[in-house]
């Protein structure tokens, strides 16, 4: 009733090609952003900010990254966690070598290091596809994980082998390190996520994104139409790894605040990100957020939310149930709804548009 575009006329091409052609969508997005920026940091408890919002925001950048590669370009990768690690270590090295440069710049720049590594490991994608490419990217994952443990220069010869997040400030306010407040960290993470999403959305709706999708749908046809496969595929790897790298830096610097990163960026995380893409919806921006939210929030809600409303469930049981739900849902969605939660969301919107008189 309220959600329909009756009366909203498009009078020029720009309107017609807008990402959000319906006014209600634009208002909705503005409301969500206002809520995220102005309400969430001030009303949610520290527990929710730290255990749900921060990992959700940090990981959603990586999920967008993998979605660009897998959802938009059709290249499967199991190395996302490794590329996240590259970002985290690059950021650590940069900020310890040049402490006077603001950490926010380094978080962004560390993405370029991940992109370079991603391009290198993306080279085989020109020759191999599907399962074989997945195996090749798996090599990247294992190599990078090995490097994080074995190259002591990466963690400044720290005897504990971990990277520790030093105190860094912006205009005198601590933004990383133990004294930074959660609200500040959350807002910074949110700014990164909004900026990176805007960038990704413009990329996939523009010429580059169209060439990716052409490659995904049929690479020979794309080549015949004049798309250079080398450029398109490597570009996808570069952009995807860039996103993973920034996500990794956010993950360690704003969320974990120092960890044994060699074990944190393990194959398990790569799979989780891939599942987030599948569950959320391959080839969809909103799907990336739905997937990341699902993967991050489900275990926490099961483990702490259910006991809080009186359903007794032990942590160990909750962990096992999470594994079962994510596994079952991944298989179910792959078979029944390959476009994931994003497609379900779209169907809902379509139903709303014609409600209450469906035809």
């Amino acid at each position, binding site marked *: 009733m309220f959600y329909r575009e009756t009366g909203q006329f498009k009078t020029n091409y720009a309107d017609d090609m807008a990402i959000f052609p319906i006014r209600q969508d634009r208002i909705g997005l503005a409301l969500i952003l206002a809520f995220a920026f102005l309400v969430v940091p001030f009303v*949610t*408890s*520290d*527990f*929710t900010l*730290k*255990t*749900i919002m921060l*990992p959700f925001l940090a990981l959603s950048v990586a999920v967008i990254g993998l979605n660009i590669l897998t959802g938009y370009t059709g290249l499967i990768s199991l190395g996302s966690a490794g590329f996240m690690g590259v970002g985290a270590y690059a950021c650590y090295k940069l900020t*310890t070598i040049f*402490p006077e440069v603001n950490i926010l710049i380094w978080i962004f720049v560390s993405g370029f290091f991940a992109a370079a590594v991603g391009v290198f490991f993306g080279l085989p994608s020109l020759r191999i596809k599907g399962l074989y490419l997945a195996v090749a990217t798996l090599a990247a994952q*294992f190599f990078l994980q*090995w490097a994080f*443990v*074995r190259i002591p220069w990466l963690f*400044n010869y*720290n*005897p*504990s*082998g*971990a990277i*520790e*997040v*030093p*105190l860094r400030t912006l205009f005198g306010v601590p933004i990383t*390190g*133990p*004294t930074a407040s959660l609200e500040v960290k959350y807002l910074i993470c949110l700014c990164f996520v909004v900026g990176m999403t805007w960038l990704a959305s413009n990329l996939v709706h523009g010429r580059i994104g169209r060439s990716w999708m052409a490659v995904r749908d049929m690479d020979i046809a794309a080549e015949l139409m004049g798309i250079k496969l080398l450029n398109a595929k490597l570009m996808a790897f570069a952009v995807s790894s860039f996103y993973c790298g920034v996500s990794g830096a956010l993950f360690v610097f704003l*969320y*974990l*605040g*120092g*960890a*044994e990163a*060699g*074990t*944190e960026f*393990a*194959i*398990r995380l790569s799979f989780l990100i891939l599942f987030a893409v599948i569950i959320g919806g391959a080839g969809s921006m909103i799907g990336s957020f739905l997937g990341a939210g699902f993967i991050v*929030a489900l*275990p*926490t*809600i099961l*483990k*702490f*939310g*259910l006991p*809080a*409303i009186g359903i007794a469930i*032990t*942590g*160990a049981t*909750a*962990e*096992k149930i999470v594994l079962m739900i994510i596994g079952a849902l991944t298989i179910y969605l792959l078979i029944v709804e390959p476009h994931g939660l994003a497609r379900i969301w779209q169907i*809902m919107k379509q139903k709303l548009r014609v409600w209450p008189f469906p035809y």
Partner: protein
Amino acid sequence: MMFKKLALGASVAATVLMAGFAAKAQDAINFVHNTYRTGAFSGSGIPVGDGVRDYFAMLNARDGGIGGVRINFEECETAYDTRRSVECYEQGKAKNSVLYVPWSTGATLAAIPRAHIDKIPIFSMGYGLSASAVGEVFPWVFNMPITYWDGANAFIQHVAQQEGGFDKLKGKTIGLLHLDAPFGKEPIPILETLAKQHGFNLKLYPVAPAEMQNQSSVWLSIRRDRTDWVYNQGWGAMNPTAVREAARGGFPVNRLVGVWWAGGDDDARPAGDAAKGYRALNWHQTGANFPVVQDIIKHVVDKGQSLSPKEKVGENLYNRGVYQGILIAEAIRNAQAITGKKVITGEDMRRGFEALNMTEARWAANGAAGFASPVRVTCSDHNSQSAVYVMEWDGKAWKRQSADIQPQKEMVRPLLEEAAKAFATSNAGWPARTEPCQNNS
């Protein structure tokens, strides 16, 4: 249908928000304890978790808690995953836990910078950051009773005893079989120093986390190198595999010595008779013949309130949980005595730990005479570097094999101080210690 789901989701989310405001329970000491009953390391996590849980359940049942106050003990499942551990840390903070027990090195490292801000002390018992033994730099972190560096040192002392003196080490080949992760690599610098000092060859045999259960190539190298002794710095599924592979390759298992985390009953048992003679370091006794363990059986296990099968009560890792429970209970008692309060806070708990002095008499008073060597914490020494001994698997149970081995404090302590200093400098803005020193006499 969809709306129903959404509504349910919203209500669940709302309760998660509310969980942050959980009211402080009256007259109870809250203690949220990390465990990992799932995941790749659950084989070691379950017995430890059972030991701690049962110990506090026993205190509540037998004495009504500590100093007349019940211990509100709660488990938080981490699956040995840093992200879950962060959740558990926040959960502990929200519930006013007096102590954070990370049970994973990654989780310890993530929590250390927060401890002095949230005023929750951290107790990482024999793992975590070795340098946190230096109380001047880490007033909020405790890692009794021994560090990995002391462990490697004790292992070399044991080898020297067996070979007939330190001079016999010359020309011997000693291997370090280790998990290829920061935890596994900890002993390397100490072993390198000792190798130079005593003239033995040190060989490193890293095992990648993904290869924990497939060590045939590593053991092939050990055979090729004619390694005389192997020190196993492993955890979880890596240990039973190492014992099995050693036995299969004809390596004398009594020359394979595990760190204290490689001494679970289930690490040795799967290899059957071949594991007879496998050795491991330990800092407490095994078995159920201690009054404290008997009390646990009487008050908890026999009443069906334990998650552990009865035959596993008293096994090595179960007793390690009990050991940790005793130290924590003693620290709570100290904190109550120091502050005169019954319900203590995290800050009081820190003072209680700093006054910890587990003499033989105190062990006996806790129903554990002869259970473990004395542990003494001071303001500057948060580790105590207590004695360890070597135990040997006889096919059914662990038996003491050596006398107590005292770690060489004068060798390890300067290295600890150096590492602590390096940590403080690399973490710009690390606060100088302002916490007053509790005089323990």
